[in-house]
């Protein structure tokens, strides 16, 4: 009896594999393998933690970063569209290493006539071309851009040997720069400014043929120190065009000389406001500093319309000073209308600022500064209070580019001032995105040249939150929409990309120069992944705390992907290695469905299958302890009348057990399930995800259960659950609110929803024709 008992229980445990085991005996012996678990921890992918960067994702005790301070005198030649400057860089070596040479970035050299960037990409003849494109492709010569370096001198004015390797310049030091030492040197340079509306440059000018003026948005305009770090050594990967920047923090004192009738603003605090502002501008500025609800116009459209006819030969120098920024940029033109308002962040006031040519009105006057203010508030609440004193949004045609405290944004109305919703929302979104970049990567200073997603993805995720919050704060600005129409962030929006042709998809963890579709790869997918983490995997509370922890740990520092991944786990106690592995290191997609449902009832006697199994082992029912039997609906020998009956009515064994072990009161309180279901879910997609299920019952009630992603850890292909219910189950929907970016929803329902195919519709249409 004991033996039989043992035997029976082992059978119970094995019962799920009871049929398939027979088939498997014929198989060849399989070779062993490394772990194929999608839940394997990321030890092999992650860098080993060390004294610079800890396993918790925080900066370690030996963490260091270099400092580069700049003093610059810049002069703009508006007539010839040239810019020239002299900079003195003071570089502090905080690393433990001795440096024999320094690397500077010469981004403008990506626009030299012989630039390798011009011939890197494959080209094919297209059989039709627009005339403009035809001329650009086959007729026009390349733009004569790139830095002209006049000298590189040491602090005593003695030339320093230097070598230019395309977009990088190496300065060889006479003596190595020891740890904790400082060196100063000067570089004199000039270059021709490109028309950014023609060649999609990130900076340059737009020419306005009607009045003959240019509006300049100037950035990446001076030789800048490359980053030297514990992770990359010198980050001297060339600037091909997509991988943006890796820059050290430093302090800037910049004097910019421009025509006297220009209006200029840039990174940093204006040091000589009284010299460059008129009395009226000063008065308006004082007013703006106290205006928290709407912008005050500092330079009006009427004033600009006079200015843009002037073309003054006189010059004016604007002096700006910025502390702890990673870069410097400015915008200048006779055409800039200028408005500002104050924003309260904690106990500090920050100025939200906009500059735009009249061609941007009325759209820009109505909305730009409002959007800047709302963005600063949203981002600050999710990360840290914006630490700089202002954020400027400059209107530049077709642009969307970010620098510390200043960014260029598109959104141009028609000539008559009308604009479509598409233009309006495009402008809101780009301003939110670019102002948002102040947080990632200007302050949380990741390496954009290597990891495009670390700033674009995080920023696009934050942009989604800020857009939704903007819509809630200014319902009239988004009317007639009631919810801000975000282009990215919502899970359903990433489905066409993730479900697309695998040969043109790269993982997120890929250099931005090597991905196929930078938009969905570095912006859309990571933003959606984080949104799904927040809403579905971790929940808002855990996510928000962890995300904030990351932002605060790494503000004014240089984080790596591991620092982000580790901090999100460190601050939440949620194991996310499976999520990072699947979403960031692979091109797998989500496809989870419900495969089938088996219905069972309690019976009073063993099923045929059970009997056969016992017989095969020379056992009878009497040899094993009393059981409660479950039989599949419709299987042989099962009385269909048992459906919907209480188990204790059907099974004497259960009835007796309850009589023996429960008091009458306890028995009365027992809620016996009448219906038993074995539901099989399957996962054709590679990504493990939480399984979100809506069960619908015959009485009209619904029940939602979210099974954690860990259900997939032992079987990657399918997952079975038994539902014991007092109510009859009539329907199952997987991911009913489309939260997981499931690429194929035809397998998400039981019973299968009869959806008419395009083919059936066509057949119906042609009937009778």
């Amino acid at each position, binding site marked *: 009896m004991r033996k039989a008992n043992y035997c029976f229980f082992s059978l119970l445990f094995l019962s799920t594999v009871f049929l398939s085991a027979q088939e498997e005996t014929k198989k060849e012996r399989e070779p062993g393998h490394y772990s194929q678990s999608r839940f394997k921890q990321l030890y092999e992918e992650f860098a080993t933690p060390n004294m610079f960067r800890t396993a918790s994702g925080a900066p370690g005790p030996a963490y260091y970063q270099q400092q580069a301070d700049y003093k610059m005198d810049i002069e703009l030649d508006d007539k010839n569209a040239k810019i020239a400057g002299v900079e003195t860089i003071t570089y502090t070596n905080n690393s433990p290493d001795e440096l024999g040479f320094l690397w500077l970035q010469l981004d403008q050299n990506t626009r030299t006539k012989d630039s390798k960037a011009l011939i890197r990409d494959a080209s094919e003849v297209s059989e039709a071309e627009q005339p403009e494109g035809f001329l650009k492709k086959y007729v026009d010569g390349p733009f004569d851009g790139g830095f002209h370096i006049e000298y590189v001198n040491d602090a005593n004015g003695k030339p320093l040997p230097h070598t230019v390797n395309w977009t990088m310049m190496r300065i060889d030091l006479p003596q190595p720069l020891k740890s904790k030492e400082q060196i100063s040197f000067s570089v004199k340079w000039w270059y021709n400014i490109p028309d950014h509306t023609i060649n999609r440059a990130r900076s340059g000018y737009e020419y306005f043929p009607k009045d003959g003026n240019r509006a300049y948005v100037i950035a990446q305009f001076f030789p800048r120190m490359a980053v030297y770090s514990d992770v990359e050594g010198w980050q001297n990967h060339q600037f091909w065009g997509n991988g943006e920047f890796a820059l050290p923090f430093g302090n800037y004192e910049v004097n910019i000389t421009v025509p006297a009738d220009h209006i200029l603003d840039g990174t940093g605090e204006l040091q000589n406001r009284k010299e460059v502002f008129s009395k009226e501008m000063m008065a308006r500025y004082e007013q703006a500093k106290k205006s928290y609800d709407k912008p005050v116009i500092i330079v009006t459209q009427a004033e600009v319309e006079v200015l843009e006819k002037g073309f003054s030969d006189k010059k004016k120098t604007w002096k700006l000073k910025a502390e702890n920024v990673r870069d410097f940029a400015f915008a200048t033109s006779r055409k800039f209308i200028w408005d500002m308002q104050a924003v309260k962040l904690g106990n500090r006031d920050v100025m939200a600022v906009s500059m735009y040519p009249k061609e941007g009105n009325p759209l820009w006057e109505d909305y730009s500064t409002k959007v800047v203010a709302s963005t600063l508030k949203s981002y600050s609440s999710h990360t840290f209070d914006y630490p700089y004193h202002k954020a400027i949004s400059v209107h530049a045609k077709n642009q969307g580019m970010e620098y510390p405290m200043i960014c260029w944004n598109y959104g141009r109305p028609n000539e008559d001032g009308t604009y479509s919703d598409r233009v309006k929302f495009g402008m809101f979104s780009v301003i939110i995105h670019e102002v948002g970049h102040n947080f990632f990567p200007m302050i949380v200073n990741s390496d954009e040249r290597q990891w495009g997603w670390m700033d674009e993805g995080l920023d696009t995720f934050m942009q989604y939150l800020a857009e939704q919050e903007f819509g809630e704060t200014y319902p009239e600005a988004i009317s007639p929409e009631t919810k801000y129409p975000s282009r990215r962030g919502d899970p359903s929006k990433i489905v066409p990309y993730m479900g*697309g042709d695998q040969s*043109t998809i790269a993982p997120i963890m890929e250099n931005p120069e090597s991905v196929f579709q930078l938009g969905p790869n570095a912006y859309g997918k990571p933003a959606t992944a984080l949104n799904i983490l927040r809403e579905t995997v971790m929940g808002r509370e855990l996510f928000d705390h962890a995300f904030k922890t990351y932002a605060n740990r790494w503000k004014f520092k240089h984080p790596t992907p591991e620092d982000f991944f580790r901090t999100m786990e460190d601050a939440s106690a949620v194991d996310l290695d499976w999520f990072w592995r699947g979403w960031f290191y692979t091109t797998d997609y989500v496809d989870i469905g419900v495969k089938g449902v088996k219905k069972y009832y309690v019976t009073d006697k063993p099923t045929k299958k059970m009997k056969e199994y016992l017989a095969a082992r020379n056992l009878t029912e009497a040899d094993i302890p009393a059981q409660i039997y479950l039989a599949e609906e419709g299987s042989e020998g099962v009385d269909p009348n048992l459906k919907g009956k209480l188990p204790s009515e059907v099974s004497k064994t259960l009835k007796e057990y309850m009589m023996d072990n429960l008091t009458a009161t306890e028995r009365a309180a027992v809620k016996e399930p009448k219906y038993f279901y074995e539901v099989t879910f399957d996962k*054709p997609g590679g990504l493990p995800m939480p399984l979100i299920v809506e069960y619908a019952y015959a009485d009209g009630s619904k029940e939602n259960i979210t099974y954690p992603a860990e259900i997939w850890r032992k079987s990657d292909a399918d997952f079975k659950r038994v539902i014991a219910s007092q109510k009859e189950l009539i329907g199952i929907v997987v991911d009913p609110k489309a939260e997981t970016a499931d690429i194929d929803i035809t397998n998400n329902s039981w019973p299968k929803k009869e959806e008419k195919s*395009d083919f059936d519709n066509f*057949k119906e249409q042609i009937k009778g024709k």
Partner: protein
Amino acid sequence: MRILKKSFLILVLPLVAFAAAHKFYISVTNITYSEKVKALQITTRIFIDDFDKLLEERYGITAQLATEQESDRASDYIEKYVRAKFTVRINGKDAQFRFLGKKYDNDLLICYLEVPKVVFSDIKSIEIQNELLMDIFEEQQNIVHFKLNDQRKSFILVRENNKGVLNL
């Protein structure tokens, strides 16, 4: 098993990507099985301008597809051409298909073909030979997606390799 599964990826080509990839000369064919009517149902999406060019060069007719001036003969020639360049074989034998018709969707021509009287459990293999437009565009790629019940498989067919076989 893992490796086998991986090759059954669904390559859904969204229309946006389709348009952007136009200069590569692509058509997309979807093949499904309808249990209801016991038939293989096939849709083929081809760029209208590519097909216009084909009809002009091959048959000398100015079809002007999807315009008010569309030639009366266009439909007949489209069917004639599809029958010449598109073959379905089930279990190694040529299967006859009905050319149900065509419709336009923006810049795409969609042809609807149906192979009637097919019992799913009898299918051991389906072979698609798709040489559409390869006679005029050297670099034409014809993408074929099979999606039959749980089976999914995709092929990119080119001149040198113009057949795809799904074994069930």
